[in-house]
């Protein structure tokens, strides 16, 4: 026979607090959040501000001086920009393995800023005809502001 025991109120509130603590700890230590924290620490001040505001940031290729926009994501998230700042061409290149968005974006930034030609040589081009979803803006802002146990980037 199944029996349900009533949990005393004091115990229930302790359980609720424990669940909240666990949820908070979990949210602050997910791979995604850790990746965003690392990325935030390695962005330039202007890239940091842009990422915080728009969920993407621009980098300048070291070899050609071309501008690229790196969107939040793990694939097909890099676009070359034209002179007016419009999306000109998509370049898909990612680090091997299943990395979180922040890590992928940091690797793409470093690659374009230090070895652009090599990065583009492995990249697959795609037409920038789809809108990239920047739907993680709330999380990005929370992490970059230090609200998810993150530390604001050093100045």
């Amino acid at each position, binding site marked *: 026979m199944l029996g349900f025991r009533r949990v005393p109120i004091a115990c229930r509130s302790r359980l609720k607090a424990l669940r909240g603590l666990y949820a908070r700890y979990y949210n602050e230590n997910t791979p995604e959040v850790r990746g965003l924290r690392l990325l935030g620490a390695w962005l*330039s001040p202007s890239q940091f501000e842009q990422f915080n505001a728009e969920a993407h940031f621009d980098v300048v290729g070291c070899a050609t001086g071309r501008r690229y926009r790196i969107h939040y994501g793990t*694939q097909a998230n890099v676009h070359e920009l034209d002179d007016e700042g419009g999306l000109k061409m998509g370049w898909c*290149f990612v680090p091997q*393995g299943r990395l979180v968005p922040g890590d992928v974006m940091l690797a793409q930034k470093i690659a374009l800023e*230090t070895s652009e030609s090599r990065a583009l040589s492995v990249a697959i081009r795609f037409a920038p005809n789809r809108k990239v979803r920047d739907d993680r803006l709330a999380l990005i802002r929370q992490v970059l502001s230090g609200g998810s146990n993150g530390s604001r980037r050093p100045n």
Partner: protein
Amino acid sequence: MPTQIVMNHNGDTRYHFDARNAEALAKAEERFKQLTGEGFTAAVRTKPGEVIKINSFNPKAEETVFFPRLVGG
């Protein structure tokens, strides 16, 4: 304390080492050689937002980040 940050599916794994400890230094250098030998790229920050790729171990770098070989997506 210098830190080597290796990207992986968990976000990253961090290895701190004491640059004044010869044994820790040798271990960190060995890790650098192993990772770059496997195709990882190593990079350090020279100032906020400015990064350079390095091909040899730099014991003075505050943080060295390693990411796996790039492939077309």
